[in-house]
């Protein structure tokens, strides 16, 4: 499948903006006539901007206060800012306001936070937290906190030693360390308040995700799907860090917190202890289903939504069955962890399609009826729209080239596998699209209620796979798959696609040479920001995708942009630059491109990245002059 930019109709705002005093009078009289002639019509029209057709529930996306207190901006995970000082017209004038070195030359995937007059950033391993004083020129350091994680943790982190950010709540900064700690700091002083050791690196467990704080609980999950680690999500008490509940991604119902409230929509997810019975004996104990991605929260429904990672090992022949509850999504009660529903994106996953991407919570009309939905650009290549009260799939459309499956059966909810692309022991299967890293990996998208578009940073890669035998040795990789990746159709390894949610098709798409491994942010000024792995930080028009401005940072960008109102009342945009992550491991880990299977096969598609960028770790903050 090939796609070029398809700009939507040029904006009509210019017509309204182009007014002068004289014609205004005439316009007024026309309006008056119109008003008499068609009052209901005009009412509808004037109402449009205040209640857009698709918007997040207000309880999960309150009015913008100019801060950025969690990586996803709000519980609905829209990554949308209502700030308008920077807009399509003036974005070209953006300038650097200040920079700051994190001192760590590894992949910088974190979103900075801004609370009041302070910015907080977390570095990759060794997970240093910095507080920068935004009220002073140059944003000097207010404090820093060094958790000194165990150096050995670096060896068991599958894909660079990244950290996806911190979360702020009730005067505290919460963050995770690679060696399995969740730590609460006093946001003012940087003093540690509690430190909970919840992951064990000796079985290959690490933590890379950003926590989410919901109702006084810090939600955290583990990484380790490539190490035979059994996945879990824990809720820690924000006050003292004790574990309130733990929900596993595999195993008996009681471990998964499946009880009488559990009502999955599809038959394939109904039955007792499916987390045991859909595996070969005992395999669920080392079966993955980790939670290292994003969580959303709907206060009205009192539900959190989180995905589950790939089953382990990757070689599917070694784990016949649907491998519940891996590569799926849970809705849970945040107070108890009790599961409400589950849906499996990729039953018996064949290609490392983790199901942990972001879920954007939106309310929209679906075939004439208002529905509470959850929008998920998924690793397996489909843009899912789910009813978030039930887990029913309303729509699943590929947002890029997919040949590993032939669609989603909306009746049974099941992904329709393509038998030609089925992997197994001793068999080399070629040109599987998307790759293990997915059409889209962790890199979070952004949604604008003004345009109704979801801005998706993603990959365009295919791969060859061969299943091989693998021994489970605790604390070492448990993969069993030889992989080598290649650029996808068209040769551009990345794309930035604006997806029209109502129309279920792309509005426009931009090609990028390398995978777009950075997150996105969109503003009410109709500007979308994202970064490229060469190091360009770009502002494009939210309506057309036209490039408005770009700035070349010191290293490749794989971080999450944010925008905030500074103490001076001005709008700022911030991004961490510093290449790495799975896609950039060739640079941050100095891997050898002559081995096609290096970094689980990703290096083969990124051979030239070393010529395009070098490792780094710098915060850039921009504003208008």
């Amino acid at each position, binding site marked *: 499948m090939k796609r070029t930019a398809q700009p939507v109709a040029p904006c009509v705002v210019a017509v309204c903006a182009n007014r002068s005093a004289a014609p205004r009078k005439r316009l007024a009289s026309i309006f008056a006539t119109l008003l008499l002639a068609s009052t209901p019509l005009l009412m509808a029209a004037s109402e449009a901007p205040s209640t857009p057709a698709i918007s997040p529930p207000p309880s999960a996306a309150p009015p913008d206060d100019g801060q950025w207190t969690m990586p996803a901006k709000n519980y609905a995970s829209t990554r949308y800012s209502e700030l308008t000082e920077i807009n399509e017209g003036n974005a070209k004038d953006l300038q650097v306001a200040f920079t700051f070195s994190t001192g760590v030359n590894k992949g910088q995937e974190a979103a900075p936070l801004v609370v009041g007059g302070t910015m907080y950033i977390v570095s990759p391993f060794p997970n240093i937290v910095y507080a920068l004083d935004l009220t002073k020129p140059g944003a000097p350091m207010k404090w820093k906190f060094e958790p000194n994680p165990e*150096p*050995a*943790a*670096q*060896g*068991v*982190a*599958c*894909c660079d030693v990244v950290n996806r950010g911190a979360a702020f709540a009730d005067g505290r900064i919460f963050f995770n360390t690679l060696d399995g700690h969740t730590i609460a700091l006093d946001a003012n002083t940087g003093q540690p308040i509690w430190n909970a050791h919840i992951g064990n690196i000796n079985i290959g467990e690490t933590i890379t995700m950003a926590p989410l704080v919901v109702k006084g609980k810090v939600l955290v999950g583990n990484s380790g799907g*490539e190490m035979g680690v059994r996945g879990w999500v824990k809720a820690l008490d924000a006050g003292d860090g004790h574990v309130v509940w733990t929900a596993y991604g595999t195993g008996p119902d009681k471990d998964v917190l499946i009880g009488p409230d559990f009502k999955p929509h599809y038959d394939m997810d109904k039955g007792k202890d499916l987390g045991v019975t859909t595996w070969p004996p005992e395999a669920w104990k080392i079966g993955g289903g980790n939670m290292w991605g994003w969580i959303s929260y709907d206060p009205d429904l009192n539900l959190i939504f989180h995905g589950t990672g790939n089953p382990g090992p990757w070689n599917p022949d070694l784990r016949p069955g649907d491998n519940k509850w891996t590569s799926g999504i849970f809705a849970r009660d945040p107070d108890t962890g009790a599961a409400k529903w589950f849906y499996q994106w990729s039953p018996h996953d064949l290609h490392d399609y983790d199901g942990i991407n972001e879920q954007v919570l939106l309310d929209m009309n679906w075939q004439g009826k208002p529905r509470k939905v959850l929008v998920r650009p998924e690793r397996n290549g489909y843009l899912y729209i789910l009813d978030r009260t039930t887990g029913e799939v309303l729509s699943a459309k590929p947002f890029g080239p997919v040949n590993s499956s032939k669609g989603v059966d909306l009746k049974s909810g099941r992904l329709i596998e393509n038998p030609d692309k089925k992997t197994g022991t001793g068999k*080399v299967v070629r040109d599987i699209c998307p790759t293990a890293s997915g059409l889209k990996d962790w890199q979070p998208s952004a949604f604008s209620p003004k345009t109704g578009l979801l801005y998706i940073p993603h990959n365009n890669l295919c791969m*060859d796979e*061969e299943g*091989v035998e*693998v*021994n489970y*040795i605790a*604390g*070492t*990789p*448990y*993969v069993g798959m*030889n992989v*080598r990746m290649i650029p996808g159709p068209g040769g551009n390894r990345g794309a930035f696609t604006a997806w029209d949610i109502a129309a279920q098709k792309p509005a426009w798409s931009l090609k990028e040479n390398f995978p777009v491994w950075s997150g996105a942010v969109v503003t009410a000024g109709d500007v979308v920001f994202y970064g490229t792995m060469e190091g360009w930080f770009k502002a494009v028009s939210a309506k057309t995708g036209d490039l408005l401005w770009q700035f070349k940072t010191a290293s490749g960008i794989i971080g999450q942009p944010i925008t905030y109102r500074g103490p001076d009342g001005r709008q700022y945009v911030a991004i961490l630059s510093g290449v790495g992550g799975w896609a950039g*491991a060739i640079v941050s*880990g*100095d*891997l*050898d*491109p*002559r*081995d*096609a*299977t*290096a*970094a*689980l096969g990703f*290096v083969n598609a990124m051979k030239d990245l070393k010529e395009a960028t070098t490792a780094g770790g710098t915060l850039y903050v921009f504003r208008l002059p």
Partner: protein
Amino acid sequence: MRPGTAMLLFALLTLAACQREERDTRPQNSLGSGEQPTPVTTLEPGGQRASASDNKAASFEANAFHLSEGKRLFSWFNCSGCHANGGGGMGPALMDQKWLYGSSIESIHATIRDGRPKGMPSFRDKIPDDQIWELAAFVRSLSGNAPSSAAPQRNDDMMPHPSENRLPDAATLGKSP
């Protein structure tokens, strides 16, 4: 023969027999049990010592059987999970000319046996010593440090890179001879 002499002779014979047994099955440290200390630096205040080489090493290096066994064990013990087929991933690349802890077979043997601080596990209790030597010899072949007549020639699986017997000496990569 007096009983005393007989006893002494018997004792001597027995002892001699013990000695011979011991030489075969349990080589002493100095003969290369892989236990001797291996410096991880070439800096030695007060002058450089002659680098200690392990006698056992020689019988593993340049030996086709041991190299191919090393290749098999490299997947078997999940080295390939972290180092891929030499290009690296969670662990560093092993086919390049950059060595954190030394390129000698003794250093590599020590790395596998004792582990290294930033995430290389210690396999001391998992892998018998001879097999650690086989692994170490194979690791060296990844950077072209094994005679092409002895290094593995083909892969049973998807080819990740040219076979080990055709890999160039990483130290001369990109440089004219």
